[in-house]
């Protein structure tokens, strides 16, 4: 008889693996990717492909250089690449996603220790860097190539996103697109953020697969809805909360970005604080800040607060005897 394997219990494991979770995230992003190609054409597909390829290649090269095992088959680099592409306008030059993904993987992820050790969402941190370095490329929007919106917006001089119009930014006398166009994704915006229907479809899948839980996305979106409704332009309780929820990057950010494991709290209470914090910062930037959109910065700021949140939200353990009780 061959020697028996002796190891410490447990002897069985769940089917969940890191690779399976990451693959699930990619799967969940596919509907939104398909809609992006539908509305923004083959260029959208090209941007996504370049971004993913750059992320995976960068991960492999960096790990080789650092003499670490190459872990590109855990799908996490692919997720980062796709997430970054989702955060780019469809008009960017094709070298931009390549540079962006390289920054996300090399600087934000691997420089801090790789998977599980990045203290910010790599795709969002890279996006913030791109926005600072190439602001024009990063804010040049394009109309969808088909559908009502393009016709309606044909006479609009500017190329503003719905949120910019909502905010009444300069040169944005254009009319707000109808809510249904926003929800479907037939509107200006970053590649992956526009179609709420497709993103929500993927989100349901992730919730069902227990890749994510409700705490961060629901508290995030709920807070934005509440604040944008209360702090309306014509006084208290006059805001267009529904429009705020479905425009911009909120759905993408709340379900896919703020839930990034390594840069969000692990405690249940901490996750709710993360969501509420993101919601408050997003609302403040959208309503009073210099930018039309605040999802990216809100998440990045809360990412940085994550270790602190974890420390102060340790759950009360079963049978805990506290000095103050």
């Amino acid at each position, binding site marked *: 008889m061959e020697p028996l394997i002796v*190891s410490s*219990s*447990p*002897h069985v494991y769940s089917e969940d693996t*890191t690779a399976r979770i990451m693959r699930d995230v990619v799967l969940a992003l596919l509907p939104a990717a398909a809609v992006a190609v539908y509305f923004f054409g083959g260029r959208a597909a090209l941007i996504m492909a370049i971004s993913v390829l750059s992320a995976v290649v960068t991960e492999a090269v960096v790990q080789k250089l650092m003499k670490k095992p190459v872990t590109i088959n855990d799908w*996490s680099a692919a997720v980062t690449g796709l997430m970054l592409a989702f955060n780019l306008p469809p008009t960017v030059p094709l070298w931009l996603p390549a540079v962006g993904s390289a920054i996300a993987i090399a600087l934000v992820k691997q420089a801090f220790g790789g998977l599980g050790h990045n203290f910010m969402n790599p795709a969002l941190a890279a996006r913030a860097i791109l926005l600072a370095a190439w602001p024009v490329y990063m804010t040049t929007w394009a109309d969808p190539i088909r559908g009502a919106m393009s016709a309606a917006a044909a006479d609009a001089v500017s190329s503003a996103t719905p949120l910019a119009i909502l905010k009444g930014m300069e040169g944005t006398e254009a009319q707000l697109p109808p809510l249904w166009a926003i929800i479907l994704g037939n509107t200006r915006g970053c590649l992956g953020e526009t179609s709420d229907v497709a993103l929500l479809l993927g989100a349901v899948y992730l919730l069902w697969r227990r890749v994510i839980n409700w705490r961060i996305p629901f508290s995030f979106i709920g807070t934005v809805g509440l604040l944008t409704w209360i702090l309306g332009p014509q006084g208290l309780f006059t805001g267009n909360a529904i429009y705020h929820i479905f425009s911009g990057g909120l759905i993408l950010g709340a379900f896919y970005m703020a839930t990034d494991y390594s840069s969000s709290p692990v405690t249940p209470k901490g996750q709710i604080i993360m969501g509420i914090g993101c919601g408050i910062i997003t609302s403040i930037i959208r309503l009073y800040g210099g930018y039309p959109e605040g999802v990216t910065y809100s998440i990045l700021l809360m990412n940085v607060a994550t270790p602190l949140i974890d420390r102060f939200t340790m759950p009360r353990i079963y*049978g805990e005897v506290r000095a103050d009780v």
Partner: protein
Amino acid sequence: MGLKVFGFKGGVHPFHRKESTQDKAVERMQAPKLVYIPLQQHIGAPCEPLVKPGDHVKLGQKIGQPKGFVGAPVHASVSGVVKEIKQVPHPAMGQGLAVVIENDGKDEPDESIVPKDIESLSAEELKDLILEAGIVGMGGAAFPTHVKLSPPKDKKIDVVILNGAECEPYLTADHRLMVENPRDVVDGLKAIMKVLGVERGYIAIEDNKPEAVRAIADAVKSVPGVEVVQLKTKYPQGAEKQLIYAVTGRQVPSGGLPMDVGVVVNNVGTAAAIARAINTGMPLIERIVTVTGGGVAQPKNLLVRIGTPFKDVVEACGGLLGQPAKVISGGPMMGIAQYTLDVPVIKGTSGILVLTKQEVEMPEPGPCIRCGKCVEACPMRLIPLFISAYALKGDYERSEKLHAMDCIECGCCSYICPARRPLVQSIRTAKRVITERRRRAASAK
């Protein structure tokens, strides 16, 4: 049946894998030619042997006497001749001193074996009987039962719970016992309640065992103060603290014992062993063992004499099927992997799992991705990823601050971890080190 179903926070849902044995009635295995009866089959001090090589022993004769209060005697599970007393492989301790008896096949009972009656025995007499019968916790931990039934005077016990959760995958020994011998379980509970002077008893069973629930509910109908409680099917529903919470809503304080909240928990198998010891006079010399896994030809529930080597038990189940990869004493979540099939069945052996390569995953740990699944799963509401991270760095003080000592080692965290981190494994190490440091600090004072 309209019963409310109770549970606890956290936990995991491993596959059950009980199908291959749950409907198989318990078969009595023929006693083997040689039994190896370890002198330590319980938590506490080992027994002093009462026999020497060459002695003739009878069935049920006491052959080992415990040295301290925390201990339980061991008895001959066959009649025959003591061949030797030597170190043999032990399913929980690696090695241990055991009395080897050559079975004469006569099963000639010892003179001390006389049936008794619960009603005519006082609480004190019952407790002595339980001690003398060598009864220990049969769910796996093997804590001497008479010790559990001797709470200090200042601890008022008002509830007795029988644990019939059997939340470990694969195992069906308790299930079959409840289905086939519900009377023994209930009689044992009555005896325990009498010893403790308690009026309220519960028999808690997971709701994936409706047959057992029905059988036990039937048996308790005419017993005042005793109820069946259905529990959510979830691992570790049978863990003592989680069980107490599910049934009574009480939380055992950190570092405390069930008796601190007025509860005593015993396994249904332990209760049945008590009933049999009273009703037949025969001490604990056999137990039901679930023999299963992909590496066993005919999975079965077997009534096995204590001291029977695993390999004989597997042989009685049609032998091995192919090459076994892992042999586990107990269930797959908390059971102990064995290095040989020569280990004997002891009082705490609830199952023998023979797993094939396909059933055994050798975890290859990756980096923690901070998914928080271990936090959601921990039934003690700990943060396993942090405790483990500190433990792996050797920073046991920090592990301790994060309540490492409250870990019940159920293994939910490691089970659920997608990165296959050695979570419970490293926390276990931390607990050993912390316990050792506390012991040394206490003795230095």
